[in-house]
């Protein structure tokens, strides 16, 4: 008898689902006709998406062509060649700059090791992953495409589906864990300013969450001080 009621419980579950909210969103990749819904699901702040090459506030490029990102890349998808700066009209502060910078997005696994390796925070990842191409050559992003524009925001290439607000946070993961994910550096600013944003504030991270929880619960302890 219990078996039978268990069966009925199962039927009740599926019937209740009829009236629940749908979890799927209607995404049309920016190709929606007028009146059609075209939503993206909200993304987490530190999503690893398409890379950007950052600039300093004076417009100078951060990349120094050191090839550390190319060396650390497990998918071998980054190709960098440095060149000496023209002393009269330098591209980046210092001696050298990234002359060739290419990322092959057919290979990239978005692991963010290049972001960790970069000594000047030149390369970070935006929150965009809605980009597709129809041939292999388009999959290779060059320096011209990766560099942020004059307003410090990523370039919106024709085959990419940018939405409102998605170009704001291009360095979430770096700011949360740098350097090397060591918690002792949490909240310590270890990065240079960015074009259009200045020096970005650090993320508060886990200790902030513990502090909040402590305040809410009215007890102390928990988390590493």
């Amino acid at each position, binding site marked *: 008898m219990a078996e039978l009621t268990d*069966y009925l419980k*199962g*039927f009740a*579950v*599926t*019937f209740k*689902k*009829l009236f*629940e*909210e*749908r*979890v*799927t969103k*209607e995404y049309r990749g920016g190709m929606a006709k007028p009146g059609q819904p075209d939503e993206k699901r909200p993304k987490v702040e530190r999503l690893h998406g398409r890379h950007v090459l950052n600039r300093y506030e004076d417009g100078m490029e951060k990349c120094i062509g050191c090839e550390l990102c190319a060396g650390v890349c497990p998918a071998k998808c980054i190709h960098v060649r440095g060149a000496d700066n023209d002393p009269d009209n330098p591209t980046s502060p210092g001696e050298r700059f990234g002359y060739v910078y290419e990322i092959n997005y057919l290979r990239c696994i978005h692991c963010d090791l290049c972001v960790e390796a970069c000594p000047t925070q030149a390369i970070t990842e935006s929150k965009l992953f809605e980009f597709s191409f129809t041939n292999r050559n388009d999959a290779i992003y060059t320096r011209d495409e990766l560099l942020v524009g004059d307003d410090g925001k990523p370039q919106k290439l024709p085959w990419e589906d940018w939405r409102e607000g998605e170009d704001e946070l291009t360095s979430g993961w770096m700011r949360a864990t740098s350097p090397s994910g060591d918690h002792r550096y949490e909240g310590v600013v270890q990065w240079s300013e960015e074009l259009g944003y200045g020096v970005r504030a650090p993320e508060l991270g886990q200790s902030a969450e513990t502090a909040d929880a402590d305040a809410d619960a009215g007890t102390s302890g928990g988390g590493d001080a």
Partner: protein
Amino acid sequence: MTFAVDPLFVDSFGLSEVVVVLLKVVLVFVFLLVAVMLNIWFMRKVISDMQNRIGPNLAGPWGILVTLADGIKLFFKEDLIPEKSHRFVFKMAPYLSLIPAFLVFAIVPIGGDFNRADGSEGVVTILGHDTLLQVADPPVGILFFLAMSSLAIYGVMLAGWASGSKYPLLGSVRASAQMVSYEAALGLSIASVVLISGTLSMHEMVLAQTGAGFGGFIPSWNIILTGFIPFVVFLIAGTAELNHPPFDLVEAEQELVGGFHTEYSSIRFALFYLAEFMNQITMGAIIVTLFLGGPAGPALFVPQGWWIGVFWFFLKLMVFLFAFVWLRATLPRLRYDQLMDLGWKVLIPLSLAWFLVLAGIRTGRDRGWSSVEVGAFAVGFGVVCMLCAGLLMMALRSARIARLAELEEDRAGLHEPTEGGVPWPN
């Protein structure tokens, strides 16, 4: 015996009668195709609702044309015939399962006003001819349904066999074993209905279920008159007969790729798909006719006519189509031995015993037994049934114990590596 009870053929048979019959055939044909299209859409939409998804919503309003788009796509895909297949049988099999699916619906009454009491219940007038809203009403009625559902097994069986490939063959062997086993339970519950209605003709079955029953408001439907058990058995056995979840072992993806239609592609696959969903509609319609009074129902609206029957018929049919989707969304697939256990050890004994009870009550009523005698019969029969069930369970248990002991013995023997043998893993 008359050739047919349809009033169309009573007086004369000429060209205009042929036209009326052809009209009905074409109507039912078109109706079935459209209904299958909507049924597949309905299934996908409801099942996605039950899984918190949106489901198909691009082709047409609410995605209602999704089946049409699928059909067009399948039509233009490449048609493959495997090299090892038996070409003629391979090509014939889809039609063997499709044609019975079409034919069964011919005996289903789908409308007509059954609230009249002047002997013309369910009769409509088409082109000046009195006729029934049903393509044919053969005196053998429900037996035709059994015959056609048995014929449909050939389509599945031959499709698997002719593919010349192992998974389709396994799928079709399963299918035929399953359909043959469940047909027994199906037939026994139909026998209960036939016993109560006293007729095989579908139209007369509906007639027998019209009118007010107990208390004036509970309908005198067979689901109540036969005591609910045959209805449950028929629903379960019918679902199994359709190879519908949770009885879809025939096309268990995890085990058999696609089952009997693994090697089928393009329009031939579409025909199997069409047949499957058409059988669902037909099975729903048969259940409605057998147990729920078919198109008969109270007249709720002031302007009355044949369409009241159509309204009731489709309302009842929708309940079952929804129930099939509900089953699909809720129950996991049975294992093969569970399937056979349910069919042979539960459904067949249950429907057989219930049939005997009904037969006993019927006999008693015919001979004018008093209520005390009927009660005594019921109690006596209950005791006999309990005894039989007990004996059956004892037999099953001792068989199981013997089987386990044998297995244990085999393992013990195999554990020691024999000469040239491989040790049995413990």
